[in-house]
């Protein structure tokens, strides 16, 4: 393995030069100056170059920042001015996008939208003030470089003192392809179900007849057949070609994080995948979600969560036992998993837990395709309840196989332990994370939306084209809004896939009916057949990228330019 794997410990600085230590010292001294409103300057260098890496047993070309897969974890401090010098040693243009960061749009790093891109052999310096804190990430926005390894974590320390954790780790999840990403795309264009090796077979047909009866089985097959779609189509690209990584490591490479029993361990989950949603759990532990997409939340206890592509979740766990705990991130379609251990000793590794059963899409997930949803008023996330069941652990037909039931009883017992009592009692502790349970830590009163834009998430599965409003990016006009407006977007998912919708430079306040406590996110996952409503204050002038964060969806057309126009000067 020639990849330079960096310490997962997020407290370790990316470069440990003397200069770095001095700058850290200066930053320490400058703490008071931050509060006094005087910004500090953090200067960072990243070199982007091609590198051969061997993850699947055969060396492949990767495009990496500072030779790391993932790239180095960058540590910034809220209030500082950062300067990031990027050197492009590739033979093709490159770019870095600072995902989830508020910045002048020219610094956002999307070639063709906000800047020219960084030419081969050239350098580019990003400069902007850091106005926020939390867990973020950065990634390439040129070609398929993100899929080829160009990404890393971005941790921004708060200007306000935060409750400290005893340990603080980055858990960066990613998918590593066995083929050139353009080849993957070409395969999808030629045969969109190329990677689906979990289709229903003749055997499943007879098993279903036994289970559901002939009539129901036939009507199910006919319904899917009529639409020419497949209920097992959960992920266009999946474990049949991907390796799933934690901080650049396969399960076999045994990534581990240390803890001492009783310690509060903060895990910063970042899904840096190009295409993969993960269902994350840590058998034996309750995870307290304290932040999503870098934004603090009212703590929420869960035993599992689904992390959409490009989302981040910060969780606190407090393992009590002197044993190794598994950090288990299954691909949503169960085609593979990423795995790491949280362990008191470096040589203790947690076993891989049994996988949760595969689930199928249901006709209700196709709901959006059959109209009527756009007109359902404020019933946001209409299918959320249903979808939770369908995708996360078993609808009626799979009763007894859901996430809960799959867990050993002993695990439940473990939760009855005293550490559990320390959690806020009003929050149910056995649940998977649901957007509807997210509450911002602090209130942000938003004005009434000035206007509403309905955006249908559309696709053509057969030809592998993804689009908004049935128009792919190549044929689309930009969306124009005015500075100062609050724009209400209504994302109507008319496809059978999940889409993580990302707006650069602006926040999306997800309307879950919590008023000023609606969570704000940089990525909103919209489940199949559902509608999500977000309010977006257009508070940053410029031209921004607005897209589905699934790389191959973005590339085939699920992308828009969003222009926030300054008011006319008279």
């Amino acid at each position, binding site marked *: 393995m020639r990849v330079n794997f960096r310490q997962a410990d997020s407290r370790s600085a990316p470069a440990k030069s003397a200069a770095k230590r001095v700058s850290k010292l200066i930053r320490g001294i400058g703490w008071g100056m931050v509060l006094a409103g005087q910004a500090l300057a953090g200067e960072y260098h990243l070199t982007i170059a091609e590198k051969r890496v061997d993850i699947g047993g055969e060396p492949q070309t990767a495009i990496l920042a500072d030779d790391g897969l993932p790239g180095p974890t960058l540590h910034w401090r809220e209030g500082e001015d950062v300067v990031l010098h990027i050197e492009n040693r590739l033979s093709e243009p490159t770019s870095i996008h600072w995902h989830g960061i508020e910045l002048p749009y020219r610094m956002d790093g999307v070639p063709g939208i906000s800047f020219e891109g960084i030419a081969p052999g050239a350098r580019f310096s990003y400069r902007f003030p850091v106005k926020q804190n939390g867990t973020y990430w950065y990634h390439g926005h040129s070609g398929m470089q993100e899929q080829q390894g160009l990404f890393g974590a971005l941790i921004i320390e708060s200007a306000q003192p935060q409750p400290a954790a005893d340990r603080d780790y980055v858990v960066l999840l990613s998918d590593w392809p066995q083929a050139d990403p353009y080849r993957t795309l070409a*395969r999808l264009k030629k045969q969109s179900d*190329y990677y689906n090796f979990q*289709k229903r077979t003749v055997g499943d047909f007879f098993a279903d007849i036994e289970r559901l009866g002939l009539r129901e089985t036939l009507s199910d097959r006919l319904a899917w057949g009529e*639409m*020419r779609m497949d209920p097992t189509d959960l992920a266009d690209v999946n474990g049949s070609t991907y390796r799933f990584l934690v901080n650049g490591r396969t399960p076999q490479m045994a990534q581990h994080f240390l803890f001492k029993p009783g310690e509060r361990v903060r895990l910063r989950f970042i899904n840096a995948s190009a295409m993969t949603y993960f269902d994350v759990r840590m058998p034996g532990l309750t995870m307290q979600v304290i932040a999503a997409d870098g934004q603090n939340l009212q703590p929420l206890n869960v035993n599992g969560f689904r992390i959409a592509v490009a989302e981040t979740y910060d969780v606190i766990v407090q393992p009590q036992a002197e044993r190794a705990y598994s950090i288990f991130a299954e691909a949503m379609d169960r085609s593979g998993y990423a795995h790491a251990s949280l362990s008191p000793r470096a040589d203790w590794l947690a076993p891989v837990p049994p996988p949760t059963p595969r689930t199928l899409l249901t006709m209700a997930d196709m709901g959006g395709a059959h109209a009527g949803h756009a007109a359902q008023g404020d019933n946001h996330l209409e299918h959320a309840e249903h979808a939770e069941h369908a995708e996360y652990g078993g609808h009626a037909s799979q009763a007894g196989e859901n996430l809960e039931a799959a867990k050993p009883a002993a695990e439940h017992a473990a939760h009855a332990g005293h550490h559990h009592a320390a959690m806020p009692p009003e929050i149910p502790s056995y649940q998977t994370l649901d957007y509807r349970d997210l509450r911002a830590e602090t209130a942000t009163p938003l004005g009434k939306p000035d206007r509403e834009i309905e955006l249908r998430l559309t696709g053509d599965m057969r030809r592998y084209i993804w689009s908004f409003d049935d128009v792919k990016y190549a044929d689309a006009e930009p969306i124009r809004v005015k500075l100062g407006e609050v724009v209400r977007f209504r994302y109507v998912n008319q496809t059978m896939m999940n889409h993580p919708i990302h707006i650069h430079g602006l926040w999306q306040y997800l309307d879950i009916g919590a008023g000023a406590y609606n969570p704000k996110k940089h990525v909103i996952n919209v489940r199949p057949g559902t509608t999500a409503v977000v309010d977006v204050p257009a508070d940053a002038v410029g031209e921004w990228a607005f897209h589905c964060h699934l790389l191959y969806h973005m590339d085939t057309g699920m992308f828009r330019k969003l222009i926030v126009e300054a008011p006319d000067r008279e």
Partner: protein
Amino acid sequence: MSNGYRIKAAAIGLLWLVPDCQAQDGHMLFNRFIAERLEYEGNGGLHLAKWDVQDWFGNDEHKLWLKTEGDYSADQGIFGRADLQVLYSRNVDSFWDFQIGARRAFEPERTFDAVIGFQGLAPYFFEVDSALFVTEKGNVLGRLTLSYDLLLSQRLILQPRIELNLAAADLQSRGVKAGVTEFEAGLRLRYEIEREFAPYLGVDYVEEQSLREHQHSVRAVAGFRFWY
């Protein structure tokens, strides 16, 4: 088949061997070559090599589409059938392409037809390839191919397939009799070692009806499916 044809076919093949190139913003160009059938077909008195090859090049909406089909009798050293279609293909729906172009038959007669047709995926996952051929004299012929993939496992696939060739009227010059001129019903069991490469075994029932003769036969087939 003359060597000339072989060279031409090879040249066309090479022309379309251009790599998948991609342009910006979804105006991407792709090329797909698929040898749906490359097979040996035979029974006691019959030994045929058969091919059914298609290649398209283009973007989501517009494609240039080539199709060639035919059979060669090794023991007699003659081609039973060999033709090449060059079609412009326009996507008219998620699942359907409208195709228009020309067909050149090299065997058994050198003929030239105009072609229009639809190709795509019908509800319930039936692959459909249909075409109407209009001869120089205005006669109409038709071809319809239907196939279906039945998954025995993720890689073991049973494919029933039917091909019908039709003629609207008798065609003396080609020895064609009105009605069903050829009916083929086959069953192929393939194993996808890779998605792109799958050997198969199967059986074909073939019935031919012409002004000269009527014959039917059952044949064993062995071949492979290959695409890139």
